[in-house]
């Protein structure tokens, strides 16, 4: 599987990743490192603990990493959650709507990780 094919399979934006990291070699290097990135785990843990500040930190970190890797969908959904918990701002979404978004984010994340693992297995 090429990097480009990986991005197609996980719904990532290869062009965006290429614009930032410039070489497939680097995209490949960092997308594999994403497997060890702790941002999602932080978000998930804070979510379970209903820790608003922790949710913001985790979502904010995940949003940044995903943006730099061209993982646009993940970046957009983590951004939504991040803004919901930004310190000093009022919540806009209902708990149900928020839970639905978090579920979607978890599913997107799982699909992405699965795709990257498959890519890793081929390296």
């Amino acid at each position, binding site marked *: 599987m090429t990097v480009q094919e990986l991005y197609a399979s996980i719904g990532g934006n290869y062009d*965006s990743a290429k*614009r*930032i*990291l*410039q070489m497939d070699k*680097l995209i490949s290097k*960092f997308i594999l*490192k*994403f497997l060890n*990135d702790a*941002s999602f785990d932080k978000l998930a843990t804070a979510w379970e603990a209903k820790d608003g500040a922790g949710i*913001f*930190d985790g979502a*904010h*970190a995940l*949003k*940044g*990493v995903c*943006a*730099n*890797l*061209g993982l646009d969908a993940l*970046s957009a959904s983590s*951004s939504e959650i*991040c*803004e919901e918990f*930004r310190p*000093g701002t009022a919540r806009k979404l209902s708990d149900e709507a928020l839970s639905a978004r978090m579920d979607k984010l978890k599913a997107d994340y799982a699909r992405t990780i699965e795709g990257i693992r498959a890519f890793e297995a081929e390296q």
Partner: protein
Amino acid sequence: MANGQNIMQKRRTVLVVEDNEMNREILCELLADEYNVLEAENGLTGLEQMEKHSGEIALVMLDVYMPECDGFAFLERKCRDPRFDTIPVIMMTASNTVEDEIRCLELGASDFITKPYNVEIMKNRMKSLIRLRESSAMLGRLESDSLTGLFSKEFFYHSLEELLKVDADAHYDLVCSDIENFRVMNDRYGTAYCDRFLRSIADEISGSLPNLLFGGRIGPDVYAFLIGHQEQNGWTEHLLPDGWQENHGKITIKFGIYTDVDHELTAAGICDRATLAIAKIKKKFGTDVAWYDDEMRNMQLREHQIEQTMERALSERQFVVYYQPKHDLHTDTTGGAEALVRWISPEMGFISPGQFIPLFERNGFIINLDFYIWEEVCKELRHCMDEGLPVIPISVNVSRVDFEVPDLAADIAVLADRYGIDHALLHIELTESMYSDNPGQIARTLAALHSNGFYIELDDFGAGYSSLTSLNTLTLDIMKIDMSLIRQAAATNDYSILRFATLLADGMRLKTVVEGVETAEQVAALKVLGCDYIQGYYFSKPLPPKEYEEYLAAHCGKESA
């Protein structure tokens, strides 16, 4: 990095402060080809890196939200430390909320980039911020004098002129300070000591001046300070702390003050006025402060007027050469004359040589004037020869400035030859004090003149700086004894110093001329002492050419009255 590498190609160091390892690594990877990259995972470690590498870091890339110490806290602490304050910071944020941006800018951030990074935009912003900081640092170096922390001369002048332009109705005073004998001090105590001294003096004066606006170092040991106008003069008594003079022995600092400065003047003109006041009290023991006053202003205006008209005056032959006869005591006839210049200006009337000669020596015009005088003297000698009048030697004065002309001896020889004048008829008068300026050059030129057949007269012997070394080193023919000695001798009826001077001259086979002789008693005494020539009002005042020729016809070869 190789030595001598162009500074523009120098690899700068940037500090990346970002808690997310992935983002940090991506950024480091993107920057590694152009920069040395330091990393920190939060604000606290970022500050530690700044502490460790403060002199190296050219720019900081800073994440906003981080644990321990976030971007805001980092900025707050950074801007409080003068070592770090000027290092530019680019904030990196995934969420470009306006509130965050405003807060970061208020805390001193220079710019923003949002994630995902646009590498080209990011690198260009980094470059321009680094360039901006480096050029302001360079400007800062030009603005301030690194030794004293005062403004540099250029920046002081610029600031002064700008201020006077902006605030036309405000009243200011300018204070200049000058350390007397600073060069001697430098030789004696060394540069390091003198640097410390210069710094402490700048601090002391800055601290004592009332309503100080700013100060500049406008010369190696000259400072200028602009202060709000002071109505009373009492403040000048405390320009240096009490006891300062006692602790600094022979070092004296003189102050010149120009009050209520004229807004129309240039900064250099304003500072000139204050330094002119200092010049008035230079070497004057016990007087350390002087004010620029009307008398100085009038003198400056007069000098300005002289400088405006001097060239025209020369071309219009306003300078007239007068001749004062020298009486030969052995033959009792006129044995020579001294050429003296007079300037009668149609606009300014009679101008004393004491006024224009020092000015011409400063501005170099004396070279033109002296050549003019020498030529007039050659013409006069030629005229006497052609008219069958007695032809006697005429002495002309040379200035220390004339000795800067590379072939002075050859130029004078060419001039004399053009008019067919025997070189022995032209005597060159120089003052003894000139010898201290450039002894080697002066001795060589005099030797060349002497070997060309010109006679050399040493003027003003006994006035001020008499040194037996110069008598021994210079090629001389005649010693002119200063009029102060004859006045003193006549007043006390004690001719012993004059006797010594004539004996000294005799021992060195030099002829003597005594100037300033006014009475028959003085003539009789000098005759007994064995002087050769006498010049003074007793025989004649300086005469214009026509009267001089009549005097020659009447007195040469005949016994005087």
